[in-house]
């Protein structure tokens, strides 16, 4: 017969308090799922892939492209600067309004890659793929959402 660990049995009050805690967590999660936002983290709505995408619309893929002093252009991945594609998309409206913010990402890239050539330009490129009945038609359109070039007065 299993022994109860060296602890007194739960009192009725102890049990009710614990059930209340469980219900509180569950209700908080439910409420935030219906009315909350990501801002309430850790009680954020579980909205992974929750947005519907029109099968007859456009699907897009965003990338951040840097150009270094040697003229080489390359897209950067999530681990190059720590600034992920999803984060770029999350803050996209800021970048559209103020493309100079891209200088911050370039700066982060340089800090993370001390040996590489200096970054002189950056752009946010969004490729839109056309969908029809959920299938790609092959038509695509490229949008440059924000461009930044290092100013001529920069060292």
């Amino acid at each position, binding site marked *: 017969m299993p022994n109860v660990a060296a602890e007194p049995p739960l009192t009725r009050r102890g049990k009710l308090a614990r059930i209340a805690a469980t219900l509180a967590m569950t209700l908080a999660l439910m409420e935030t799922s219906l009315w909350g936002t990501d801002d309430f983290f850790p009680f954020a709505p579980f909205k992974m892939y929750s*947005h519907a995408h029109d099968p007859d619309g456009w699907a897009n893929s965003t990338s951040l492209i840097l150009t270094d002093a040697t003229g080489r252009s390359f897209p950067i991945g999530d681990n190059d600067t720590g600034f992920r594609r999803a984060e770029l998309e999350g803050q996209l409206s800021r970048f559209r309004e103020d493309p100079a913010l891209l200088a911050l990402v370039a700066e982060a890239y340089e800090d993370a890659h001390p040996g590489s050539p200096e970054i002189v330009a950056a752009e946010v490129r969004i490729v839109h793929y056309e969908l029809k009945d959920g299938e790609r038609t092959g038509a695509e359109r490229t949008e440059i959402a924000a461009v930044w070039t290092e100013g001529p007065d920069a060292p």
Partner: protein
Amino acid sequence: MTRYVNGFFFTPVALGRVAAMRFLAGLFVWIEWWAYKPFIIQHRFLPEDLYQPLLVGRVLPIPAPNYWIVTGTLVVMLAAALPVMFGYRPRLFGWILFIAYFEWMLIYNSYGKVDHASFGFMVLLLVLCMMPDQARWGDRVHVSERVGWGFNLVQIAVVCTYFLSTWSKFRYGGFDWANSGVFTWAIIRRGTVFSDWLLDFPQLLIAAQWGMIAFELLTPLVLFVYPWKRIQYSIIAFFYVFHVGIFAALTISFLPHLFAMACFLPLERIDPKRFVRRVRSGRKGREGDPKPRDRDEPDPELTATG
């Protein structure tokens, strides 16, 4: 009825499971920062202007991350995870781990994107802090209602991650989510060799979207079947298979969620010390045996399911 409710929240769980879950929790913390989410540590290079503090970050006096805050949080977190894993003062170090991990999650999620796979894992770290210090691997003798309640809380958090994500789909995607092109969109963005061919079969993807809704709405059943352990373990096995499929198709793994979900399983049956002893004595007994048995033969204790 009262008995069922009481059992739902307070079915005693053996302390061996606490030791195993502490090990897994610390192990995940050690895996996550370099193998699973390496961009979190890269956030140390990001200028403060890109930091978008969350509500907790604004209410509590938490400074904007910089190079040393990010590095320091990582060091504290990894250092605290080790004693937790090996059962040295696991409550004290558990609290340090919980706080450091929470700050790590704020660093993770405060730059314009919040991910949603960690809730169950954070609940796990929290309840582990409150479970007995003297939990040992393989202890099936000592059981505790408090531990049972704690793991039940984690299990509910895990189930909510599925169940409530349907609510979010209805909320953000509308009731037509299941008829939309969301899987096509996901595969275009993150498809693999296992999923790219699906783009040619949009009807199949729509069917899969309906299947996803049905699956997620049914997940709470796994909590309510708790008196029938075999059924419960089979459902959990199915959940793991589901995640293997999602990973193959989209390389999204929800790894912290998978670690938290392990507390459904009877991990108290695993006793590494006994396993080592058995392998050793087995080796001795085989001396002179012309045809030794396969040493890697699985321990029945490890593979038993019910």
